[in-house]
Each structure stands twice: as C-alpha cells, then as structure tokens.
C-alpha cells in the first residue's frame, strides 16, 4: 500500500516536471472580443508614422517581426535615460536576431523631428533598420500609446513638460501585446528578456 502511494507521488511529480519543460505561452494582453464565434485579441491599432529617415512606417512594416517598444522624448530629464539604457541592453542582446526589431516613439513630436531622432540614434550607434525611432502627428501618437497601455500627458509643472510611464512593451508578429516590463527596473527587464526568448521559441516550434 505504502509503495503504491510512493509510486503515485512519483508519477505526479514526473508529470509536473514534464510540464515545466513546455511553459504556457505568453498571454495576449488587453481586452478580447468575440465575433462570429472567434476570439479577437487586442492588437496595436493602425498607425502611420515617420522614422528617423523621414520614411513612412505603418503596421505592415512590422508584421512578421516581434518588436520591443517604448515611448520617450529627447529632452526628458527624468526616467528616459534610464529606460534607454535598458532598451540598449535589450538591443545589444538581440542585435543579431533578424526576427526582433526595436521601436521607440517620441511623445514630443514638435521638437523631436526625424532629423533630431536620426542624430539621437546615431549617438546610440545603432542599426537604423533594426531600431526605428518614430515621430508624427501629436494626437495620432497619443492615441497609439493607449494600444501599448502607456500613460502620458503634457504637464507644464513637471521637468521636461511631459509626464509618462516608462514601460518597455513586447509585441508579437501579429501586433498582439505579449509582455511588458517597467523600464526603470533592471530586474524586471531581465524577466522581459526571458519572455522575448520564450516568444521566439514559440515561433521556432511552429
């Protein structure tokens, strides 16, 4: 009898052990809706923006890539440099992976023109086709940020004039938001790195 219980425990443990080798896929974040019996997941809405080379970028330019995204602005004296350092860390890790892109949006399009963003990107010493710096119509950018669950608003009381959240967002090949991390927290960014690896594996096994 006793040995039977032992065997039962062994089987259960083995089962659990097997399962951890194949982790649950990352969730598709945001609200879902049901249409004609199909579940529709939240996706990043249609956007038309300009990159650092003044070339138009739309959603389809990013389909087929997973991308790491954030919102910032050049004259941001508070959290942006810290978040940018973490973005750079992620960039350096996935620089050689053709499936991964990086997309930084400015929240200050008036001052952050494509040429200013180009100069900024040059100073970061990055590949311009791999890391896009996007600007465009102010209202359009502030609409898009909602799709990435970013909070931002203009506030003349705060240093730099814009208050915003510093999350780094992971988007999959179909525009679903799959994970995010507080960009000022290096440990949370490490976890995001694990999620990026997991998402890449998800596509590899397909």
């Amino acid at each position: 009898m006793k040995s039977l219980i032992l065997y039962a425990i062994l089987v259960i443990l083995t089962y659990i052990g097997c399962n951890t080798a194949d982790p649950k896929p990352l969730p598709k974040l945001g609200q879902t809706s049901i249409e004609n019996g199909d579940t529709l997941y939240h996706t990043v809405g249609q956007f038309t923006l300009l990159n650092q080379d003044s070339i138009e970028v739309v959603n389809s330019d990013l389909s087929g890539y997973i991308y790491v995204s954030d919102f910032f602005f050049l004259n941001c004296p508070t959290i942006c440099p810290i978040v940018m350092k973490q973005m750079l860390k992620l960039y350096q890790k996935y620089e050689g992976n053709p499936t991964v892109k990086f997309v930084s949006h400015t929240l200050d399009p008036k001052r952050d023109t494509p040429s200013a963003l180009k100069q900024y990107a040059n100073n970061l010493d990055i590949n311009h086709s791999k890391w896009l710096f996007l600007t465009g119509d102010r209202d359009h950018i502030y609409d898009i940020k909602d799709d990435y669950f970013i909070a931002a608003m203009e506030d003349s009381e705060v240093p730099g004039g814009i208050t915003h959240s510093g999350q780094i967002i992971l988007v999959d090949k179909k525009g679903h938001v799959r994970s995010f991390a507080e960009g000022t927290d290096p440990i949370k960014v490490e976890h995001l790195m694990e999620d990026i690896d997991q998402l890449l594996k998800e596509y590899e096994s397909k």
Partner: protein
Amino acid sequence: MKANKVNTIFLILAILTYFSCNEAKYMQGKRTYDMVCATCHMQNGSGVKNLYPSLKPINTSITSSELACIIRYGVNKESSLIKMPPNPALETVDITNIVNYIVVDMNRSKEEFTLDQIEAMLENCKEATVEQ
C-alpha cells in the same frame, strides 16, 4: 592554537580594510550624485553611449574646474542634441562633494578639492557665462 587566533584577527582586519577601501570616500557627494546626476549619467557613472557622457571613466580633456562649472550651469551648446540643465539649487559645498566624488571615488584621482578651490573655479566660470 595561538597562531590560529592571530591569523583569524589578521583575516578580519584584511576583510575590514578591503570593505573600507571600497566604500566611497565622499558619501555626501555620492548621495547628491545619485539624486541629481544618476538619471542621465547612471548610478555607476557609465552614461549612455555618446548621448549622456560617461563619468567613469571621465573624458580626460575635461578639467576639474570645467566639471564644477558644468555641474552648476549645465551645457547648452547649439551643437549638442541633448542639453544638460543647470543646477541652481546646488550650493558650492554640494558641487565640491560631487566633483570630489567623481574625480576621487569614481576615477581614482589623487587630487581632491577644497571648498575654497571650487568656489574660486565657480567665480571664474560665472564671468565666462556672463561674457557669452
């Protein structure tokens, strides 16, 4: 047995010396640095590429008096993409502590500065700023 005890004492002494060496000499400077400078130049002084210059190691062409002036008045060159804001709230004593923290603790310089020396440096850059 006795030799063992002596050994232990020396070991503890060595460990203590090691830790005291590693601690910043200019703790007050470090505190102010962490509050005022670290957001851009990073807590460890590494900066971010060419955007926010590294302070550890610091560009050797920057003199200590330039450093003091930059901390107080910022950098507002036409050519620089990101302008460093001035820090009018910092007293001369704060600036002295930050300069010493950067040059002595971060860059292992033997030279450290007194309050009077930094005061004199700041007098000079005040004139330079007015001239512009």
